């Protein structure tokens, strides 16, 4: 530090500020270019989904469809039973989100509010399960669930969510810890039970954190491929990712490119909608629970 000080005499305070301008221009240009590169695949995803089968095979790819083939979006419902896939995925993701929110909020509240014996030990154990790779435990889980006759049902995809997930518990605990103690003292004065304080004080104040957890849980369940591939065997129970994965299989001599893109666009819709609704809460949630 001292060498820098010695070489640069104290200039007028405006000097460093003026020097920032070229940096900002360079940043702006870099951002324009990277954003263009990031968005280009998405642009083509949407535009390709609306091209006719013939136009799809053209090289170089056309930016916008020459004729807009809206019928592609109807075709996918015939080729793939897309309606069933979508419904299955929505049911599973919806119940998983509900289960994750309920259980993670309860557990996180316990860790944040009660200094009971063993709190630290269990919390460290919880954090260490974040490292536990699912493939490392999937075989015994599969054996367990097949003994319970749960194969080819949605249960293995939903029930574990009701027992909390480490990352989300961690996130919510960080948030609950910032709630002022006085709120709960006041609640206790009023004769509030512990569960009631959780429901009427902690939860309503935690909307950003809960929205963040809901989004994470939804994306996780919505995108999960490995678990449904293991557990679901009849095609009317398949989830969206399982059905979509079959589009690249060898049963198509030429991959149905337009359907690949239609499926991808439609798979994205719920996630984008969720973000659009909860964006403010989500950003706030990430900032407030930021890993420190």
């Amino acid at each position, binding site marked *: 530090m001292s060498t*820098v000080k010695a070489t*640069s005499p104290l200039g007028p305070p405006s000097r460093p500020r003026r020097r920032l301008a070229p940096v900002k221009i360079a940043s702006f240009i*870099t*951002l324009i270019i*990277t*954003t263009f590169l*990031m968005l*280009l*695949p*998405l642009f*083509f995803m949407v535009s390709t989904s609306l091209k006719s089968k013939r136009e799809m*095979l*053209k*090289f*170089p*790819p056309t930016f916008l469809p020459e004729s807009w083939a809206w019928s592609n979006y109807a075709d996918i419902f015939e080729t793939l039973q897309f309606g069933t896939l979508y419904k299955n995925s929505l049911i599973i993701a919806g119940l998983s989100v509900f289960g994750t929110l309920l259980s993670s909020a309860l*557990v996180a509240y*316990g*860790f944040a*509010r*009660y*200094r*009971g*014996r063993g709190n630290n030990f269990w919390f460290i*154990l*919880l954090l260490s*399960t*974040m*490292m*536990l*790779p*699912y*493939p*490392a*435990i999937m*075989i*015994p889980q599969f*054996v*367990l669930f097949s003994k319970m006759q749960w194969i080819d049902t949605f249960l293995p995809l939903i029930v574990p969510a*009701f*027992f*909390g997930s480490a990352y989300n*518990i961690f996130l919510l605990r960080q948030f609950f810890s910032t709630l002022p103690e006085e709120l709960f003292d006041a609640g206790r004065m009023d004769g509030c039970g*512990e569960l009631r304080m*959780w429901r009427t004080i902690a939860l309503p104040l935690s909307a950003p954190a809960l929205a963040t957890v809901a989004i994470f849980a939804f994306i996780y369940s919505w*995108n999960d*491929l490995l678990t449904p591939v293991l557990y679901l065997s009849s095609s009317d129970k398949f989830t*969206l990712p399982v059905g*979509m994965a079959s589009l690249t299989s060898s049963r198509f001599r030429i991959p149905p*490119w337009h359907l*690949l*893109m239609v*499926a*991808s666009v439609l*798979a*994205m819709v719920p996630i*984008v909608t969720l973000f659009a609704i909860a964006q403010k809460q989500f950003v706030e949630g*990430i900032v407030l629970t*930021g*890993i420190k």
Partner: protein
Amino acid sequence: MFVIKSESRRQTFYLYLFISPWLIGFLIFALYPILSSLYYSFTDYDIIHPPKFIGLANYTEMFHNELFWRSVKVTLRYTFISVPVQLLLGLGFALLLHQSLPWRGFFRTAMYFPSMVSGVAMSLLWYWIFNPQIGLFNYMLSWFGIHGPAWLMNPDTALYALIIMSFWTAGSGMILFLAGLQGVPASLIEAANLDGAGRFRIFLNITLPMISPVLLFQLIMGLIDSFQVFTQAFVMTQGGPNYSTWFYVYNLYTSAFKEYRAGYSSALAWVLLIVVMLFTAVIMKLSRRYVHYEGGSRR
């Protein structure tokens, strides 16, 4: 005295009441599977017939199995390129966006957008992008006069195609870095600025240490995620061509659920578990010198 004791008992009671869902889940869905897969790893087991104890045979077979070593090589190569580059890109984007610039909100959303497409949808999209005849990637290369390779159909380039694809979701790391950067006190930066410290020095001596916990967290989670790559291999390449994208977990999945060798796969699972724990432990230990925690002493 009595009051204090009953208060601490009350606290303990409610602690266990509230965390019981996770405790039960931990025992059933984590601890039991870990221990039983350890047992299965010493057996010959096909899920249908009862397991037969065979000692270390699964482990010795593994170390002589060519596909095992192939999967290790593929996974490590993917990890060692994809994780650091994703971190750097995420941090770079975050630093660019942590200034007052026009269109900031738009840039932030646009960078994060690809992360919403992850999973099978992303794999299908990039399956098309990398298609050598009609795909976007070689078309864009042709702007610069480059004749692109066959990407996913060429054993020499397939893995690199998947690595390039992974950069597309660097925006999810950027969000976390941005949150970290917001936690760096402006007063510290101003003070350094007044002392005449340049941008680079401020970044190296103030910003970087302050966000090092975020960096560490992302490094570890990034490693764990990339050790578990499955979707891309399943959807885009089926481990090929010529096993060039034969990822560790794809290997594990195939031997467990295609060849019904649950004993051997359990040994694979345990090796994965140990490797993940080792990597995490080593990184944590090395990082102790560099990572700064608020309120803790640094040296």
